[in-house]
């Protein structure tokens, strides 16, 4: 499904029910004859511009969404790409998420989240790596959980009370201002 001619893979593993809950709502995508895209030798499933999905979407293949999805998306082992035309109102769980379109909802990614130029996210992000390009829109919170990483690298500064001039780049900082 999702514009694939080949037989649907058996849904044996966890999270392999791609589209089963929503298949009836596809509404006949006119772009169903598009060639199947591939990225870096991996098969990528594509949801076309005219497709509207309401419900839960899960799977075990990389997925590109150019249409609209409302509900929940789970691709915990795969890369999810929201194309420039994609509009998502959903909670998103993925290994990696690339946003070029619009996402309204909270995002959880185990690897990374990338909001590219023109991409828009309104929601909270939990991911160890987050990249936000210039020209991207973001409103929400970013929580870069650092599993097994040392505690925050903020160094306690015993010298924080040192006189300001001691580290002052003379060319720029004139003086500590009078209070």
């Amino acid at each position, binding site marked *: 499904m999702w514009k694939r001619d080949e037989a649907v893979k058996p849904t044996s593993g966890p999270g392999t029910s791609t589209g089963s809950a929503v298949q009836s709502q596809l509404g006949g995508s006119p772009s169903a004859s598009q060639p199947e895209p591939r990225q870096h030798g991996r098969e990528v499933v594509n949801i076309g511009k005219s497709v509207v999905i309401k419900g839960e979407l899960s799977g075990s293949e990389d997925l590109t969404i150019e249409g609209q999805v409302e509900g929940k998306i789970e691709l915990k082992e795969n890369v999810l790409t929201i194309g420039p035309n994609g509009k998502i109102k959903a909670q998103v769980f993925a290994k990696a998420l690339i946003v070029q379109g619009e996402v309204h909802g909270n995002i959880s990614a185990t690897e990374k989240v990338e*909001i590219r130029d023109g991409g828009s996210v309104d929601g909270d992000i939990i991911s160890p790596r987050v990249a936000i390009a210039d020209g991207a829109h973001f409103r929400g919170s970013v*929580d870069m959980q650092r599993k097994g990483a040392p505690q925050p690298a903020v160094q306690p500064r015993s010298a924080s009370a040192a006189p*300001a001039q001691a580290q002052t780049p003379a060319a720029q*900082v*004139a003086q500590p*201002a009078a*209070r």
Partner: protein
Amino acid sequence: MVSLSDLFARRRKEDRNGDGPVHPTKVLERFLAGLAGRPQPVLLDLGPVVGTNVTFFGEEVGCKILVEDLSKDIDRYVTEGKLEELPAFFDTRFPQQSEAIDGILCWDIFDYLDRAGMERLARQLKRVLRPDGVLLAFFSTADPRAGVRPTYTKHVVVDRAHLEYRPYAGSRPKQRPLLNRDIQRLFEPLRITENFLLKTNLREVLFRKPPLSSRVAPGPTAG
């Protein structure tokens, strides 16, 4: 041996577009020091979203970051011609619970507000800031120049001691600068812990909310 923070700084320098001047900052280092010792400090950023800042504060410092771009709010109210409603909007702008934020990055947002807006915004920031939390703000000390196209500034962290000022077009010019005592009064009961006047006519100020212990009034002495 290259330290982790050096690697991050090098990467940020490589990522920088380099389209704005880089200025030293004294107060950022102190701000970060103010967050030290907290397991995962929650940071509220009132400026426009900057990817490298998210990486810096998220990956290097280990903060949870909340981005609330107030310049967009200002622009919206200006273009809708409802600027007089902006102060009241600040009363409901921040959904955060009281005393939930460890650090606030105001950057230079106060330069673009009128008095009523400043007071309402400062009231909210004082509410959400945790006891012993820190607030960083920049204030221009120069009168705004007439006839200059309004610009806002993205403050991009280059490293702990340097910021890139990246200007971009805005709808509202900077307003008349505040006097030092006005800044102090605006944020009371927050205390000014650092105050630097740069040659760029910018005042960098670090505020700290008094810890709970210092705010509790002494009870009546027994006996």
